[in-house]
């Protein structure tokens, strides 16, 4: 393939083929864990049995985003949105919807049938209508296993235009003008990174994709890799052309086997079509991509540790300078971008920097994908313009807290980020605004917490992660985070003094200022921000020996209100520790020494006589 006409012809054919058939899109991203592969098989079987095989196509797509409703099935045309589908429901959908033309209302996502007179399309629901998908634009819409479907949605056109119509420096300038900032965590301007790499004289240069998504709960990169692998290949090839590199590496966690498999298939297809490898689009430009599987160390998401790992060494960061742009992989100039960053690039090339800049805020252009989890109704992936407020994400898009609970805080940026209290619900979600209030964008993890969350416990949870994932190279991170955890353990067990709190703060500032890499420097953030906004909770644990949220077991006391207790003995009979005594029809009592704080008594009391505090 050489000319644009050839590419556009292929695109038109693919579009026609996709339009010709009814498409049953089955989310085979995260939904595979709730059984979407069985659903797919059932559809294929039922469709064949119904003799619809030539009219209906079953497509395994990447993640559709609304994970809490999975497995999700969407039928096109019409964008009809089925949620919680299992294989037993498939027969009915095939019979009534595909054969009879009538969607099965009882299986549809409830919001789409709230109005009995019409069925909302998927994109019209609250979860989707406020979203703007750039990085995820193809996820859930195409088959990641077919390069034609990617081409049908403008795939590889940006690469063609770069190689045939643009000089490398023009592409770099477009990146600079777009204001795109790295989506992996630090938010470094992508254009500046490309410029630095392009300016290096030494060869070979390397273009690397950071697909070592390690933040607990974040899975946007996985979704792109699984749902739209070609966009990464195209973007990396553009980066190679713009910076003068011919070698690409994708460093992907081995825990993402589906992503790895789909990338391998995509690389193979791209080779066969001549859009990757030698003499791309017959322009004489060569660029090839190799996969490197990571062993799942959080620290390997840090650029220099990632490169050390690709080299075959223990994944540990190194002191900078020199920057990776000058001396990176194999001591050669290297350009490293994150998956989500790359996913934006072909569109920026096609639509221009001004188009991209118009989305988001001045300092943070474009969109950001958040992986929303925790105490929230709609867990899943949400892509919104930068600057969308936390309130909009939590309430308008994600449907608020389950059971009408009260929002207490949200943690952004994973274990390196910080918490945002309810006072800041209207904070704009962009790099600078989040940083200003002591949190960070990070890779886009967003964990929502309600009033039943203990903030000391949550800080401890994140710190346990960091302690576990510290590479062990520098002293402040290796020993310092462990000492912080030692203190947090004391606090949650009611053994700490105010002097320990001073030491904890001392350690926070020491580790932030003295650690070798960004991971160490940001490791204390969860503690720093919970101390900033929820200091009273720490003091309650330390001084009052009390956990206000009733989470820290050592500090929780279950007590029986004698005025409410009817002496039914349910609590005593359900207590595994035989800690409750009392005669029938007489008020009971809990022996605090024997009590395991399991809560069985409370959940079995029919009279609300047992309280926790």
């Amino acid at each position, binding site marked *: 393939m050489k000319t644009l006409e050839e590419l556009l012809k292929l695109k038109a054919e693919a579009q026609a083929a996709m339009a010709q058939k009814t498409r049953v899109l089955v989310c085979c991203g995260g939904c595979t864990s709730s059984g979407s592969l069985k659903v797919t098989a059932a559809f294929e079987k039922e469709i064949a049995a119904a003799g619809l095989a030539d009219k209906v196509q079953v497509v395994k797509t990447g993640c559709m985003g609304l994970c809490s409703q999975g497995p999700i099935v969407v039928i096109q045309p019409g964008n009809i949105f089925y949620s919680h589908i299992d294989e037993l429901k498939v027969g009915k959908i095939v019979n009534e919807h595909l054969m009879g033309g009538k969607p099965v209302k009882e299986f549809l996502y409830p919001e789409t049938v709230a109005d009995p007179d019409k069925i909302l399309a998927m994109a019209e629901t609250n979860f989707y209508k406020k979203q703007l998908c750039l990085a995820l634009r193809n996820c859930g819409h195409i088959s990641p296993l077919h390069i034609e479907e990617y081409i049908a949605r403008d795939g590889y056109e940006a690469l063609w235009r770069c190689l045939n119509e643009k000089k490398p420096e023009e592409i770099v300038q477009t990146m600079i003008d777009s204001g795109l900032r790295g989506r992996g965590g630090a938010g470094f301007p992508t254009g500046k990174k490309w410029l630095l790499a392009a300016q290096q004289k030494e060869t070979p240069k390397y273009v690397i994709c950071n697909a070592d998504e390690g933040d607990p709960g974040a899975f946007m990169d996985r979704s792109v890799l699984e749902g739209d692998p070609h966009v990464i290949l195209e973007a990396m090839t553009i980066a190679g052309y713009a910076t003068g590199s011919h070698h690409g590496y994708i460093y992907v966690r081995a825990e993402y086997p589906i992503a790895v498999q789909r990338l391998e298939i995509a690389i193979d297809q791209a080779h066969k079509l001549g859009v990757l490898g030698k003499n791309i689009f017959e322009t004489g430009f060569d660029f090839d991509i190799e996969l490197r599987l990571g062993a799942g160390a959080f620290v390997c998401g840090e650029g220099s540790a990632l490169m050390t790992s690709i080299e075959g060494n223990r994944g540990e960061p190194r002191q900078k300078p020199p920057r990776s742009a000058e001396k990176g992989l194999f001591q050669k100039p290297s350009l490293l971008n994150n998956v989500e960053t790359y996913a934006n690039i072909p569109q920026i090339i096609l639509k221009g920097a001004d188009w991209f800049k118009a989305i988001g805020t001045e300092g943070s252009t474009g969109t950001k994908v958040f992986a929303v989890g925790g105490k929230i109704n709609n867990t899943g992936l949400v892509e919104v313009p930068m600057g969308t407020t936390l309130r909009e994400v939590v309430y308008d898009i994600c449907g608020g807290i389950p059971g009408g609970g009260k929002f207490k805080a949200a943690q952004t940026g994973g274990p390196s980020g910080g918490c945002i209290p309810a006072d800041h619900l209207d904070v704009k979600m962009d790099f600078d605004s989040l940083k200003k209030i002591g949190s960070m964008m990070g890779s886009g993890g967003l964990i929502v917490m309600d009033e039943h969350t203990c903030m000391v416990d949550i800080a401890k949870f994140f710190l346990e992660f960091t302690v576990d994932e510290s590479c*062990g190279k520098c002293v402040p991170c290796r*020993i310092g985070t462990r000492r912080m955890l030692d203190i947090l353990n004391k606090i949650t067990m009611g053994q700490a003094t105010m002097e320990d709190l001073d*030491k904890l703060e001392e350690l926070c500032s020491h580790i932030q200022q003295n650690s070798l890499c960004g991971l160490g420097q940001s490791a204390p953030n969860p503690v720093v921000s919970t101390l900033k906004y929820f200091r009273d909770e720490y003091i309650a644990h330390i001084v009052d020996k009390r956990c206000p949220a009733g989470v820290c077991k050592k500090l929780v006391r279950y007590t029986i209100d004698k005025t409410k207790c009817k002496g039914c003995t349910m609590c005593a009979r359900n207590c595994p520790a035989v800690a409750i005594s009392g005669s029938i029809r007489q008020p009971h009592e809990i022996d605090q020494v024997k009590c395991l704080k399991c809560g069985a008594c409370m959940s079995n009391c029919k009279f609300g006589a047992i309280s926790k505090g």
Partner: protein
Amino acid sequence: MDMVNLKVNGISVSVPKGTKIVAAAHEAGVKVPTLCYLKGVNEIASCRICMVEVVGPRGNSLVPACAQPVKEGMEVLTNTPRVLDARRRTLQLILSDHNKKCLSCVRNGKCELQELCHEMNMDDEDHFKGAQHLPPVDDSAVHMDRDNSKCILCRRCVSMCTNIQQIGVIGANNRGFNTQIGCAFERGLGETSCVSCGQCIAVCPTGALYEKSYIDEVLAAIADPKKHVVVQTAPSVRVGLGEEFGYPIGTDVEGKMAAALRRIGFDKVFDTDFGADLTIMEEANEFVERVKTGGVLPMITSCSPGWVKYCEHYYPDQLAHLSTCKSPQQMQGAVTKTYYAKKAGIDPKDIVSVSVMPCTAKKFEIGRDGQEAAGVKDVDYVLTTRELARMIKRVGLDFRSLPDETFDDPIGESTGAAVIFGATGGVMEAALRTAVETLTGETLARPEFHEVRGQEGIKEATYNVAGMEVKVAVASSTGNARKIMDQIRAGTAPWHFVEIMCCPGGCVNGGGQPQVPASIRNFVNVPKLRADALYRNNEAKTIRKSHENPSIKKIYADFLGKPGSETAHHVLHTHYVPREVC
């Protein structure tokens, strides 16, 4: 050279571009404390002790002085309250997971961590309390132990083993707080292809790494009236030992050392230098024979047991290149229990043969096959230079006030050729002095071969000897040995004769020599200073060629016959075995 101007604590200084802050500060007369940093070996900025403040437009930042290159106009502050506080916290963190049994530690008084605590007035080593590691000691190797409860994870040993020696049998296992230095799959060091060089010990700042000590055994033998205990000392010991008694690096204390050994109670004080002269006689002869008979070339020296073990593990297909000569230690041990035993009328079984070596691989070497000329081990115990110093202190000798004494006959006399064995290139030069005279039949006017001297890792020279071009190469460190051996294996090596020493700079810098703290080592060329002392010793000798040593002539006349004779082969030569990489 591009120069960069900066200020350190207000002191202007101009240094070459690329210089690190720590070196620029040194130029300005300012000491920045370090712990993990060892110039040219370990520059990974992991300990964070050397943090300094750099004045910046958006506030001052803390940076590691060991890794941060200087910039034009940079302003560095090394002793602000913020800096001192940061260092103090980091040190307290290190101490919170350190086995602080300093009184019984082998490095007590010579520990870089202890010194740092002293310098920083550490008054609260228990500021941070919590979980602590107390892993078992790895005592599986024949030459050394590892006690990770004393390890501060500076990684100097790892860098030395991996980057300089290019062996890499140790590395970091586990991660985070559980990180420990050890061998792959947490096997013992003795189960790996460690070559026993002891360079890891030489660079360890604390008491985590130390040689297996035989001081008690040797003192017990001395106290046993039935045993005749003799000692030999390698060339490098005399130029290292003084450091343990406050002498400047590069001081030759040969005379006081001999006196000390005698006062410790050794029955005879011999000199490995005699064994070195003997080695030259045999090795030069072997080389000449190989040249004349078309034997395997290049011939490679076999004095360094770490190098020999390295070759056996990593180049088992190239063992034919190794000279069959035993090392000077083993030749000395062999003639002690044969020639000397016979002369003195002592049953070799009653002789306890002790050597003092700058080397830990020698502790491995004495247990090798084919090192039993008299049917018993040629050498029974090896002590390092450090152990000898500890022994001198233990028996209560005031080393500095000892008189200068000489070695005992009949195997104590040596030449200038022998004493330079301790420096890289020294064996080659000594061998050339004898080989050239043997081949040409003429006496060298100046027995000096300057081309093979000096501290470079690999040196090459070509000499015209009796119409023949003799190409030689000299390498020190196994990392450099690898480069030489790859060429030999590939068949592209141009040389006839190659000298390889296992340790960088040769035996003067051996793994058994006194440890020099990084604060000195980073700014002083220690191997060079010690080697210079050996060359001065050589200059002072009237006899500087091994074949002119009267005692050597006598042993050949009385016992060995001529170099390469059957007796010589039985007593002075050995064989090698292929080993695996593991």
